[in-house]
């Protein structure tokens, strides 16, 4: 197998725009085009354009597609309506999180599972293995799609100028097939930024045309291309977990404070049910470390892996940290002992290269958009 980085259909365009590229899960992706702070603020106040073609699409079809997904994933896929999407997870037999996913129901018996780039092969392998005995087909569609996201308050207006699709009728976490700038696309009202926005799944051959059309239509509204760096600060402000940081195989959904995604009441067995039942009971009787927000009083930035401390004792660990452009202060997500997890708990700090910097414990998210 080649170790050369994978390139998206928009690679030449990114380079022509002067993007700083970075390796992300084996893909060469734009980190930023100019200032990541400007890109972040554009998404919060106007609009930003992202290439997310590294995400992994897996199509599941057939009479028992829904039964397979109910068995393979922890969510209840049976209640996902046609044209709707659901946030869910795939777990191991021991309850550890393999990945967090969005499942779109594209047809009566057709679903698209979108996995994180770094886990796409793992998810594909797991779903394929779990498909045994089900009348369903699992198809690797990673090369079938480019994914372009338009995020930010101006995104509905920008997209409306390029499509006849009924965007007003398109709810959050829903998707419909349509045409954008003459390009056939699955238009989904999803995102990872805390803003209103859309994700457009298109054939790679059409990606450049769509990107250019969105750039032109969006420029008057302040749309700019945005890289993965600001995507990370946007999702962090919005309190959204990132696989490999807040979510790992060492944690169950209950440990991550996301036990609500596990639907024990659904029909049939599912992978991880037994372990997750135990994890749910543990979470009731002896709460695990809780995921909280931390806001710096000073200016030094907490990073993943740094210790959270109180009275000189380690009480937790930072999972993600960055300077928040919206708050103007460094922020972090961290797992901390329940005794120190309440908002306003005094005396909590982060060990930043040997110095205990004071931090305020807050409830997540840091930022919630005005609807």
């Amino acid at each position, binding site marked *: 197998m080649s170790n050369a980085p994978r390139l998206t259909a928009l690679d030449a365009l990114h380079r022509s725009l002067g993007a700083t590229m970075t390796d992300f899960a084996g893909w060469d992706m734009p980190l930023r085009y100019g200032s990541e702070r400007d890109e972040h603020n554009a998404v919060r106040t106007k609009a930003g354009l992202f290439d997310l073609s590294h995400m992994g699409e897996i199509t599941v079809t057939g009479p028992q597609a829904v039964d397979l997904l109910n068995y393979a994933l922890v969510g209840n896929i049976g209640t996902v309506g046609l044209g709707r999407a659901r946030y869910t997870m795939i777990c191991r037999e021991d309850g550890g999180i393999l990945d967090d996913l969005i499942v779109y129901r594209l047809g009566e018996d057709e679903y698209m599972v979108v996995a994180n780039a770094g886990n796409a092969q793992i998810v594909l392998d797991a779903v394929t293995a779990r498909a045994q005995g089900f009348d369903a087909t699992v198809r690797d569609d990673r090369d079938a799609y480019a994914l372009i996201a338009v995020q930010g308050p101006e995104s509905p207006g920008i997209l409306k100028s390029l499509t006849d699709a009924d965007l007003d009728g398109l709810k959050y976490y829903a998707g419909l097939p349509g045409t954008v700038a003459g390009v056939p696309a699955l238009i989904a009202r999803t995102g990872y930024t805390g803003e209103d926005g859309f994700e457009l799944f298109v054939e790679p051959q059409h990606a450049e045309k769509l990107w250019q059309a969105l750039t032109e239509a969006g420029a008057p509204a302040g749309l700019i291309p945005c890289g993965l760096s600001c995507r990370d*600060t946007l999702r962090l402000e919005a309190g959204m977990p990132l696989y490999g940081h807040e979510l790992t195989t060492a944690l169950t959904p209950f440990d991550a404070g996301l036990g609500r995604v596990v639907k024990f009441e659904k029909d049939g067995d599912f992978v991880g049910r037994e372990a997750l039942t135990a994890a749910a009971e543990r979470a009731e009787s002896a709460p695990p470390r809780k995921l909280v927000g931390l806001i710096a009083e000073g200016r030094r930035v907490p990073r993943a892996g740094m210790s959270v401390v109180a009275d000189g004792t380690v009480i937790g660990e930072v999972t993600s940290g960055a300077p928040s452009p919206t708050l103007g202060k460094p922020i972090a997500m961290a797992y901390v002992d329940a005794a120190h997890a309440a908002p306003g708990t005094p005396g909590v700090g982060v060990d930043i290269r040997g110095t205990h910097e004071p931090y305020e414990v807050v409830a997540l998210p840091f930022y919630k958009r005005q609807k």
Partner: protein
Amino acid sequence: MSNPQQLRYSKEHEWLSAAEDGVSTVGITEHAANALGDVVYVQLPEVGDTVTAGETCGELESTKSVSDLYSPVSGEVTEANEDVVGDPSLVNSAPFEGGWLFKVRVSEEPKDLLSADEYTEFAG
């Protein structure tokens, strides 16, 4: 990007001005500032500190990472740029001007500092 001809450069991407009354100004290059991304925090050496060529004397924190600041020369710090402590984005917007970092009374300077042309080639 162009690297001012009158400055000299280290391979750790600092620039050093010619000494005036024995005191030189130190900053990081535009190349380094661009590589860091938006700088959000700087920790500079304090006035009176002794810095040593090639050794850490502070840190520069950007959105994505923290980097050590090295001193390109040895000597005693005579001034730290408080403006850049208050507004670290000066490192990005004016790396060779308002974004300078500290001044140092040079006691010894390494022989391998680069000219502007040599640094431009080195930094690619």
